C-alpha cells in the first residue's frame, strides 16, 4: 500500500468572477521513502494541490471532489480538529519557500521549536529543549546550544531554512512537503539545503514532495516527477525517463526553456504566451492554446492518461493509438536547432 494516494482531487475557488478550477482532477501516488517533484509554471495549481492535502484550503476555496488516502486513512473525511491533532506536524509537515516569513519574529528559534515539540509529543520543557538542540545539530546549524536562543532575524537565509526543516522534522513526520524550498536562497545555499533534504530523507525515512518550478531542483533530488499545467497533471515519469524522453508537448517546451550556462539566448526557447485563466480554461486539452502541435481533436476531447505500462504516464492525444500523428514534431519547428531537449539531459 502506498503512503499517499491522491485520486481525482478537485479544488475549486468560488470567486465573484466565476469558479476557478485551480486543481482539476489530479491523481498521484507516493511510496514510503520516495520523493516526488511537482513542477509547473506559476499558477499551475501546485501549491493549491499540496495545501489541499493538509486541509489548508480557505474560503472561498473548497476541495470539491476526490480522495486523499494517507496510510489508508481518508483525509478529506477528517475534521479540522482531527487534522490538527493527528496529521499536521506529526504525520505530514511542510517547509515553506520563504523561511524568514515562516518563523515568528518575536520568539527565539528554540522557543518555537520547543513549542512544536511539546504540543505534538507531550515532552517536558527540558526534554523538548534537548531534542530541539539535537534537531538543530541534525540540520547542520553550527553551535546549536548557543544558536537555539537566537531570534530568526539573527540567522542567515540558509540557516533560517534549516531551522524550518528542523521544525518540520520535530515530530518525525512520515511525509514532508517542501513548497519551493530553495527558491528564496542563492545558488550556493540551495545545493546545501538540497543535500540536507536528501540526507534527512534517508536518516528519518520520510517521503518528500517537492513543489517547484525549478527543474534543476527536481533533477537533484526527485525519484519521480509530475508535471502540472493549469490544474491538471499532464505527465508523470521517473525523472531520468522524463529528461531523456519527454512525451507531452508542454514538458518538452518546459525543458527547452531552461537556461543552461552554455546556451546562447537564441538557444533558449520560451513557451509562447501565458497560462490561461482557471476561470474559463480552454475546452478539451488545456494546453492546446499554447501547444505547437495542437490539432482539431484537442479542442474537443479531454485527453485521458495514456499508460504504456512503463510508469510513464502522459495526458496527450498524440499518444492515442487511434491518432494518425504518432510523433510530436516539436523539434522540427522552424527556427530552432534540433536536439536541445536531449542536449539538456546529457550533462
Amino acid at each position, binding site marked *: 500500500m502506498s503512503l499517499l494516494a491522491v485520486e481525482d482531487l478537485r479544488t475549486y475557488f468560488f470567486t465573484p468572477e466565476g469558479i476557478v478550477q485551480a486543481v482539476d482532477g489530479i491523481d498521484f501516488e507516493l511510496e514510503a521513502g520516495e520523493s516526488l517533484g511537482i513542477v509547473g509554471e506559476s499558477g499551475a495549481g501546485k501549491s493549491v494541490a499540496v495545501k489541499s492535502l493538509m486541509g489548508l484550503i480557505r474560503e472561498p476555496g473548497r476541495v470539491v471532489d476526490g480522495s486523499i488516502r494517507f496510510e489508508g486513512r481518508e483525509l478529506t473525511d477528517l475534521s479540522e480538529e482531527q487534522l490538527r491533532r493527528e496529521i*499536521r506536524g506529526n504525520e505530514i509537515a511542510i517547509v515553506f519557500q520563504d523561511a524568514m516569513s515562516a518563523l515568528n519574529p518575536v520568539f527565539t528559534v528554540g522557543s518555537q521549536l520547543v513549542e512544536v515539540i511539546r504540543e505534538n509529543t507531550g515532552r517536558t520543557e527540558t526534554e523538548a529543549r534537548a531534542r530541539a538542540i539535537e534537531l538543530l545539530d541534525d540540520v547542520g546549524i553550527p553551535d546549536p546550544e548557543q544558536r537555539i536562543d537566537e531570534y530568526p532575524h539573527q540567522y542567515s537565509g540558509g540557516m533560517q531554512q534549516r531551522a524550518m526543516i528542523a521544525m518540520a522534522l520535530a515530530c518525525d513526520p512520515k511525509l514532508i512537503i517542501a513548497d519551493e524550498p530553495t527558491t528564496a536562497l542563492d545558488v550556493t545555499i540551495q545545493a546545501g539545503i538540497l543535500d540536507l533534504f536528501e540526507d534527512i530523507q534517508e536518516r528519518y525515512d520520510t517521503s518528500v514532495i517537492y513543489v517547484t518550478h525549478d527543474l534543476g531542483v527536481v533533477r537533484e533530488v526527485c525519484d519521480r516527477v509530475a508535471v502540472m499545467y493549469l490544474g491538471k497533471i499532464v505527465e508523470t515519469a521517473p525523472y531520468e525517463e522524463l529528461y531523456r524522453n519527454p512525451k507531452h508537448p508542454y514538458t518538452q517546451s518546459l525543458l527547452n526553456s531552461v537556461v543552461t550556462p552554455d546556451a546562447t539566448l537564441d538557444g533558449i526557447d520560451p513557451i509562447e504566451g501565458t497560462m490561461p485563466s482557471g476561470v474559463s480554461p480552454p475546452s478539451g486539452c488545456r494546453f492546446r492554446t499554447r501547444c505547437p502541435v495542437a490539432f482539431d481533436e484537442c479542442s474537443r476531447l479531454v485527453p485521458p492518461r495514456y499508460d504504456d505500462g512503463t510508469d510513464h504516464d502522459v495526458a496527450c492525444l498524440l499518444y492515442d493509438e487511434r491518432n494518425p500523428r504518432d510523433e510530436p514534431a516539436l523539434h522540427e519547428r522552424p527556427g530552432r536547432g534540433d536536439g536541445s531537449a536531449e542536449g539538456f539531459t546529457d550533462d
Partner: protein
Amino acid sequence: MSSEQGRIADTSFETESTVVVTLKKLKYSPTSLVGLFLIGALVVMAVFSTIDNFLLDRAVITWLHADPHAMNQPNRYAAPSMDHPMGTDQYGRDILVRIIYGSRTALTIGIVAVGISFVGGVVIGGVSAYFGGYVDDALMRAIEVLYAIPGLILAMIFMAIFGPSLYNLFLAYGIVGIPAYARVMRSEALSIRDRQYVEAAKLAGLPRRTILFREIVPNGIAPVVVQATLSMGSVIIGAAALSFLGFGVQPPTPDWGRMLSDGRTALLIAWWVAFFPGMMIFITVMGFNMLGDGLRDIMDPKTTVESVETDDIELEALRADEPPGETDAFDDAHDGSPTRADGSGAGTADEQGGDRS
C-alpha cells in the same frame, strides 16, 4: 573557540528586546522625556500617599504638612499662604496635601481602567479577527454599539447601575475603553493572520489558542500599547468628570475631580480651591500624552527619532581630509540637504524641527 565566543558576544546587542530598544530611544525625544518626568513625579506622589494612607494612617503627611482629612472650620477658604501654599477648601482642609493624596485615585483609575480595556480589547479584537465569520460579526457589532454611545454617558449609566464606588469607576471606564482597543487589535490581527508563520504554526499542529496568543497577539501588540498611553489621559479626565458630576469617588477620599466640583461654587471668592486640582489634571494628562506621542514616534518605523549623528561624524572625517580653503563651500553644500538625496529628507527635517521645539 575564543574567537568564536568573541563573535557571539559581539552580536549580543541585537538580542535586546523591542521594549528595551524603545525605552533607550526615548532619550532622543525631549517631549516624551518631559512626559516621563511628569508621570514619574505623579507616581512618586501616588506611591507615597498609598503607603502613608494605608500603613501609617496619614502620619507622615500630617507630620510634614497637614492631615488631608482634618477639618478646621474657622480657617475655611483661606487664601494661599506660607501655612497653606494652595489655600484651604470649604472645610478648612489644606489643598496641597489633598492634591498629593488625590494623585493616588487619579493614577489608579488610569492604570486599572486602561488595564481592563487593554486586556479586554486584545482578547476581543484578536478572537474576532482570528475566527472571523459569525464570531467576528457578532463581536464587532456589539463593540460598535458600545462605541456609538458617548463614553461619559456610558460610564454614568454603568455607575448608576452598579452604584458609585471607586471599583465600579474602574470597571465602568475599563468597559467604555474596550471598543477602541479591540478595533486596533483586530486590524493588526487581520493582517498578521495571513502571515506565513501563522500558517506554519497551524501546519505544525499547534492549537488555536497558542496560535492566537503566541503568533498573532505578540506581533500586533505595539500599536495597542501606544493606544494605551494615549488614552490614559482621557480616562483620567473622564474619571475626574464623573467625580465632578458626583458619580465617582465618594468623600472623604481626596479626588481631583471631586475637589474641582466642590470648588466650583466658591470660584468667585476662592479661585484656588478649583484652580489647583484643575491644574493637576491638566499636567497629568499632558504628561501621558507627551509620553504617548513620543512612544508612537519611536514605534513608527517611518519616522526616526535619533538625530543623524553619523552624518556629523562623516562630516568631521571629511573635513579633516579637506584642504582648508574649500571647507566653507563643502559645508554649504552639505548643510543644505544632508540626507534629502535618498528621499528621507522630509522625515529628518521634521525630526530636527521637533527636537528644537
